[in-house]
């Protein structure tokens, strides 16, 4: 802003070349996302009216209703659950709070599709719980059916609330007690203060978390497939695999994408121009103490969520793994584990780096081009994984062929440069998960007070110094949260990994796929368990970092 106000022509020149660099950077980061999306939109070039007529006549209305229902219910549930639990652990005091504070992050490591098959196995009519109840109390149905609308909302909410919890928690912790104290000194009760003072300030973080959860809900295939619940995504897969119409499938996918763009636009319009910058530091000891029954209710709620979302499913996986024996556990498990973690760490580094550059670009050069590039770069998350993977595969194969021709011309062996290496995978993860990193990075940048940057500039700190000495220390919690989200997402990712990995390169998610493809849930338990443990490592790392008080 003040750069634009500079009257000197030399300064304007410097500012515009500076701005060009940011623009160029943002566009360069958006291109890898744009290309596969274009390939997918290219489906419109081929007509398939018969398939469309069939979909319109039979299943489309139900699919849209189902999808809307799922988004609304899961959206509400994860917001209330995630933000509520975050408030409890960040601002209140009750029995066991210090442990719940980090325990409640653990379900993040459990993929929704694993939670889904464990829940159905345990709770369906033929499962152990209902069988036991029948043995005790006689025949009949003793529980509401798990394979139902309620069941799928329960499973998805338990699997996805940590996205909101994680982001809202750091926002509540970072905003300090001052706003709350001010509200209370103005006569607000604690809960009113929560709703009127704490939530508005944490709103960008809460919205970022809910958006992630909703995009994941839209893109989900594994969970809805286990539940045999028909959504937009299942229609895309059915059109592709059952009706053999990839064009119609990509047309459906681009409609899905369009609705995400509109929804994100509406959200931004609703949020308006309001910007909240936290006025305080991490808070001291002024927590709301929940005494007696209320304290125990809070503990009970946290325990319940933890038991259903983590302890019970993990116990079932452990039981299966032991029942099956550890014969499967050979040296290749170590290789798979290392591949999984290595990929996750590399992808987290690259993706968070890209998201940070985008977040800075949009602040330093908030032109239309840059803002569009950022919107584009964060779209990949909402597409069903397989559809995005195919779009990417076609793009990367094309690039590889051109590189191969270049290699022939230059006499260099440039065949399958991308497709034969993990680069293809890293690009895919970047395309898919920039949105996951974007939420926390952007929310963290939002909290950097503009006045602080101006002050630093006034003290002569510029360019990379500004990044190193002002932004990074302020952003560290947000960057760590982003890296964790990406790492855990990569560890759980299945379709792109399946399609784009080099020969003989296996990860834990691929092992799970190989087992569940034939309905062998017990066989998938060992890789799923290992995957959860692998996902826990970064969660625990984050817990340790966030436990150390920030300066």
């Amino acid at each position: 802003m003040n750069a634009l106000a500079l009257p000197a022509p030399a300064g304007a020149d410097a500012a515009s070349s500076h701005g060009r660099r940011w623009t160029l950077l943002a566009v360069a980061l958006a291109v890898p996302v744009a290309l596969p999306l274009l390939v997918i939109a290219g489906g419109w070039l081929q007509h398939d009216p018969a398939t469309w007529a069939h979909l319109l006549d039979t299943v489309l209305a139900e699919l849209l209703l189902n999808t809307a229902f799922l988004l609304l219910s899961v959206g509400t549930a994860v917001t209330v659950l995630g933000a509520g639990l975050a408030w409890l652990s960040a601002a209140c005091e009750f029995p066991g709070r210090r442990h719940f504070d980090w325990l409640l992050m653990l379900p993040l490591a459990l993929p929704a599709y694993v939670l889904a098959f464990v829940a159905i196995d345990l709770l369906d009519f033929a499962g152990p719980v209902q069988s036991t109840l029948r043995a005790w109390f006689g025949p009949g149905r003793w529980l509401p059916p798990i394979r139902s609308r309620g069941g799928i909302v329960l499973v998805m909410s338990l699997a996805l609330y940590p996205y909101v919890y994680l982001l809202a928690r750091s926002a509540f912790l970072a905003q300090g007690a001052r706003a709350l104290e001010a509200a209370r000194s103005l006569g607000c009760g604690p809960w009113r203060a929560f709703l009127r003072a704490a939530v508005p300030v944490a709103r960008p973080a809460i919205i970022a978390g809910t958006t992630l959860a909703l995009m994941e809900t839209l893109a989900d295939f594994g969970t809805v497939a286990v539940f045999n619940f028909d959504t937009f995504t299942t229609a895309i897969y059915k059109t592709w695999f059952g009706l053999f119409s990839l064009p119609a499938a990509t047309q459906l996918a681009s409609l899905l994408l369009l609705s995400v763009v509109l929804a994100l636009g509406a959200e931004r319009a609703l949020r308006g121009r309001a910007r909240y910058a936290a006025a305080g530091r991490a808070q001291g000891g002024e927590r709301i103490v929940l005494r007696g029954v209320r304290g125990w209710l809070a503990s009970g709620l946290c325990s319940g969520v933890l038991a259903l979302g983590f302890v019970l499913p993990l116990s079932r996986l452990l039981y299966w793994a032991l029942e099956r024996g550890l014969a499967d556990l050979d040296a290749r498990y170590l290789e798979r584990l290392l591949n999984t973690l290595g990929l996750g760490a590399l992808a987290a580094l690259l993706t968070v780096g890209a998201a940070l550059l985008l977040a800075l670009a949009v602040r330093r050069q908030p032109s239309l081009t840059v803002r569009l590039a950022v919107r584009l770069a964060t779209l990949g998350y909402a597409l069903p994984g397989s559809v995005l993977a195919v779009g990417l595969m076609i793009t990367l194969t094309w690039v590889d062929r051109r590189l191969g021709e270049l290699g022939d011309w230059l006499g260099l062996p440039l065949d399958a440069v991308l497709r034969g290496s993990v680069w293809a995978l890293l690009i895919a993860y970047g395309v898919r998960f920039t949105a996951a990193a974007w939420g926390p990075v952007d929310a963290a940048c939002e909290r950097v007070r503009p006045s602080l940057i101006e002050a630093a500039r006034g003290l002569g700190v510029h360019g990379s110094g500004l990044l190193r000495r002002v932004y990074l220390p302020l952003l560290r919690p947000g960057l760590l949260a982003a890296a964790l989200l990406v790492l855990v997402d990569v560890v759980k990712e299945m379709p792109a990994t399946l399609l784009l990995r080099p020969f003989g390169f296996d990860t834990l998610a691929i092992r799970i796929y190989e087992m569940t493809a034939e309905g062998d849930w017990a066989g998938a338990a060992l890789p799923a368990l290992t995957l959860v443990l692998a996902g826990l490592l970064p969660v625990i790392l984050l817990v340790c970092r966030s436990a150390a008080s920030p300066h």
Partner: protein
Amino acid sequence: MHPFRTPSALAATLLALGLLQTATAAELVVYSSRNEQLIKPAFDAYTAKTGTTIRFVSDKEGALIERLKAEGDKTPADLLITVDAGNLWQATSEGVLAKIDSPALTANVPAHLRDPDGRWYGLTIRARTIVYNPQTVKPAQLSSYEDLADPKWKGKLCLRTSKKVYNQSLVATMIARLGAEKTEQVVKGWVANLATDPFSSDNQAIEAVAAGQCDVTIVNTYYFANLKTKNPALSAELFWANQGSSGVHVNVSGAGITRHAPHRAEAQRFLEWLSGDEAQTLFANLNFEFPTKAGIAAAALPLSWGPFKQDDVNLAEAGRLQAEAVKLMDRAGYR
């Protein structure tokens, strides 16, 4: 003359070395949608026998076919191995498989279990039939898939989702036999008889029958065999459907050689070996599927169910009619 002679001699030597290399350490690349544990033993046995190393990548069929299309003549893949004729037919119609003329394959694989044009060959038979709970159903009450649409089974039928290709192929062959109108009647009857929403796996459907949630279901036999092996007391039995009419619906896992296979001759030798005695015996004992080659015995448990008559409609028909079957099931409200 001299400057020419040396390079051509060198080229000849290199060629010879190259040939020598293919002869001793050949390599094949396989794209497979089959589970590693069901296919790798066959790869290992072939490598042990011939020295040919086999690299493979596993994924869903649709993704592998798209991959072959995108890679075109640059593909590293020699063979595509997948389950279900619907998928093999799809690969054929996308033009990614090559026509193979092989007397050995024609002799080993029965005509209805291979592509009429020789672009794919069935390697194992997967039969889809009726499983029932012996505490509530007598075998005499059962007859055919079509009979399960009769109102007498109201609230007693469990099915797997129509999104699974096994059911799509079953309904496609019914369309081939009965025509679309009659088939839609049958599917509507099934939906009316459902005891609960369709399941996402055959295992769940069998367990629901055993637990008494329903009395009958339609599943692939190897799922039943695997569950029965784990728990011999499971209250479920197998019934060969349609023995008085069309025969049991069978499908295959199969393979074809890719159109741009870099090692076509070696790939054909491997495919022929897969259809021969040694590999067929291996397959029979891996997953309770039935060997395609006549005269090779199935495993003990599938043998104990007795001989059965197979539906001999060519499986390419199932592929051709699959999209129609999907639409029919959508119309009938079979989710």
